[in-house]
């Protein structure tokens, strides 16, 4: 099955482990990725400055997807997923804005067609590949391990546009982790935001939000933390020590992209999955 992929900015410029693990695991699940060409930012940071310009950026990336010959588009970043989904909703339902966007797109010889289905890693695996097919491919179950999952904010809200999972009780990422033979934890802070958007204006607050969530999890005694967004991962993994310093505590919790855990269960190598890039990974705690 061919699926187009829009990587956005954060993944292909810094969060390489997410891209590496996705490129490694998806072929094992019979998904062939087609990289979009000529892409730009989704408009996430532009939205605060000029909402129409942000909408244009998302619209042009959707139009580029239209050129690939497949109607399925994978958007692995939570923010990009929200921006593109919202843009599609707006263009599909607002004739005035649709005309304005088509006019702008035509300047680059592009055109938007509503024939595009936007997927995130979580629903692509849960709803397209399906959990049973993943279970059937697991070669090395992650049994005996317990993880807390973090779906993030922007892929589950707002439910008025098509989102990846339930807005208040998301379970798909838990189910995907359980499919690998591990346990998951239901915890009160599950929906707490990482605070990444505050890095633009209030970095201390972002680090406090991240630190408070990780601290709570450490007290629940889990083996690791699983996310699926380059912004959340930057904070929980690369900025974990800074977040601990901000709240004045000690935090040591191994943080993984879901696709890295999936790769380990498929018996792929640690380095192929970019595990050596995870700053929080403590190899002594894991047998894989």
């Amino acid at each position, binding site marked *: 099955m061919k699926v187009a992929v829009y990587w956005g*900015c*954060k993944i*292909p*410029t*810094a969060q*390489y482990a997410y*891209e*590496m693990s996705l*490129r490694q695991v998806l072929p094992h699940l019979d998904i062939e990725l087609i*990289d979009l*060409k*000529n*892409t*730009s*930012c989704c408009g*996430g*940071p*532009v*939205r*605060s*400055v*000029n*909402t129409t*310009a942000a909408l*244009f*950026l998302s619209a*042009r990336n959707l139009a580029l997807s239209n050129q690939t010959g497949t109607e399925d588009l994978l958007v692995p970043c939570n923010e990009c997923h*929200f921006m593109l989904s919202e843009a599609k909703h*707006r263009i599909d339902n*607002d004739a005035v*804005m649709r005309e304005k966007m088509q006019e*702008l797109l035509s*300047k*680059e010889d592009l055109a938007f067609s509503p024939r595009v289905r936007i997927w995130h890693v979580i629903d692509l695996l849960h709803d397209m590949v399906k959990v049973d097919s993943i279970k059937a491919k697991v070669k090395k179950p992650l049994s005996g391990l317990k993880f807390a999952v973090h779906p993030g*904010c*922007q892929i589950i*809200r*707002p*439910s008025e546009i098509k989102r990846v999972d339930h*807005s208040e009780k998301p379970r798909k990422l838990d189910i995907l982790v359980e499919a690998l033979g591990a346990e998951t934890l239901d915890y009160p802070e599950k*929906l*707490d*935001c990482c*605070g*990444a*958007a*505050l*890095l*633009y*204006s*209030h970095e201390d*607050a972002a680090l*406090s*939000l991240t630190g408070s969530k990780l601290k709570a999890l450490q007290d629940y005694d889990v083996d690791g933390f699983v996310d699926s967004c380059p912004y959340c991962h930057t904070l929980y993994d690369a900025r974990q020590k800074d977040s601990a310093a901000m709240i004045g505590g000690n935090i040591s919790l191994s943080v993984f992209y879901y696709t890295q855990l999936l790769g380990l269960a498929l018996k792929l190598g640690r380095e192929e999955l*970019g595990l*050596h*890039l*995870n*700053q929080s*990974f403590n190899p002594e705690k894991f047998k894989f």
Partner: protein
Amino acid sequence: MSLTDLMTMAKSDKKLQRKILGQLWMVHPDECYQCMRCTSGCTSLKLLELKPHEITLLVNSGFIEELVSSDIIWTCASCLKCKERCPQKASPYNTIMALRNLAVEREAQIPEAYMRAISQILETGLMQQVQTVASKDNQPLNRETLGLPEMRGPDDKFQAVFIEVLGG
């Protein structure tokens, strides 16, 4: 003292209010009945004292200038809980974004990082440059050494169109 008391010295500006409301699509702040569900779940309430229901109240009262020149509109974490949980169609999140846009238009003090991201997008199409990162044992690694394909930004035509749409 309530917020409206604090605003008694200020004058309601209906023209700016219309401008904000005109930017919103399928969002109606005037439907807000101050139930505060938005504020009770707001990510930025505890640390930064953001109260989305008050933002909505101030917009409905026409105190736009005061909001646009205040730091409070830059404390939103974009978690979208207020938009999801609002029982009406008020969505404080969208109102806050419209207020930020107006702050930029009026050249108010805005966090520098946003303008840096815009400059970077103008230059390369992406919000940040391709980086060399460190592995956990401190080896410098980049796309090439990690075996990832070369990253290319948008074609030449992109920049002119983006400048045009940014300009208005």
